[in-house]
């Protein structure tokens, strides 16, 4: 496992076709995180639409970690399994259940991030682990666009490291 970069406070590891990012839970890392996500997907043949969607979902979910959890860090993992991009973002304490989610009233300017994510992703699940909570999103490429990456099968979420050490 090689550290690709540790600039911008973002620790970046690419291993077995997966991109892993760890960053302090601060808004200054959002733009670098988005750039890494875009670059990773672009290099692996992601369609412009899928790249835009996963970039937006990563930004929303990382922002949720910053705003709504006490976690000192954000952990994000992105990989490709066949025609699907799989994005895991931890830690996400305080995320409401996905069933019954509804838009807040106009007078409430907050709370739209998860609505955006569930609108643009094909699947969104909240996975509870011993060490925290992972939001897992799947965005499928249109058929014919995907280039299957054999070694990009996503491990079970239980192998996802949640860094609470700060």
């Amino acid at each position, binding site marked *: 496992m090689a550290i690709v970069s540790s600039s911008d406070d973002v620790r970046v590891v690419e291993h077995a076709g997966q991109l892993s990012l760890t960053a302090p839970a*601060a808004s200054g890392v959002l733009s670098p995180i988005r750039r890494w996500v875009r670059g990773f997907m672009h290099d692996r043949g992601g369609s412009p639409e899928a790249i835009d969607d996963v970039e*937006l979902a990563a930004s929303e979910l990382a*922002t949720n970690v910053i705003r709504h959890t006490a976690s000192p860090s954000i952990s994000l993992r992105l990989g490709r399994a066949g025609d699907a991009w799989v994005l895991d973002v931890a830690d996400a304490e305080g995320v409401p259940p996905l069933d019954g989610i509804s838009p807040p009233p106009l007078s409430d300017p*907050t709370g*739209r991030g998860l*609505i955006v994510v569930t609108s*643009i992703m094909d699947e969104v699940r909240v996975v509870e682990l011993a060490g925290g909570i992972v939001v897992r999103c799947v965005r499928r490429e249109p058929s014919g666009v995907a280039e299957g990456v054999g070694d990009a099968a996503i491990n079970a979420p239980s192998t996802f490291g949640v860094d609470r050490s700060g």
Partner: protein
Amino acid sequence: MPDDPVRLSVTRNGPRSFELIGELDAHSSLPLDELLAPESATQHITLDMAKVEFMDSSGLRMLLELRTRATEAGTQLVLRAPSRQVARVLQVSGLDDVFQVVPTQ
């Protein structure tokens, strides 16, 4: 982060008309007081959004706050020429009918 680059610039290009360039996320802040300053009789505050390369719901939150304050001040917020990224977030949030949006001039 050290040497944090400016990721959002707000430039005045007319009476109560401003151009936004860059990214609108949780790290950005809109100068609401400056945007709302009643310096002309113009009834609209216009934001040119063509060069906003990224916006998420945190950016949308700022636009909603600006819209609310503009309404309270008796003016109307107009979003001009939203980029694809801006238009998409407005659409998936169901707020594309809430904001007054005008196409490219």
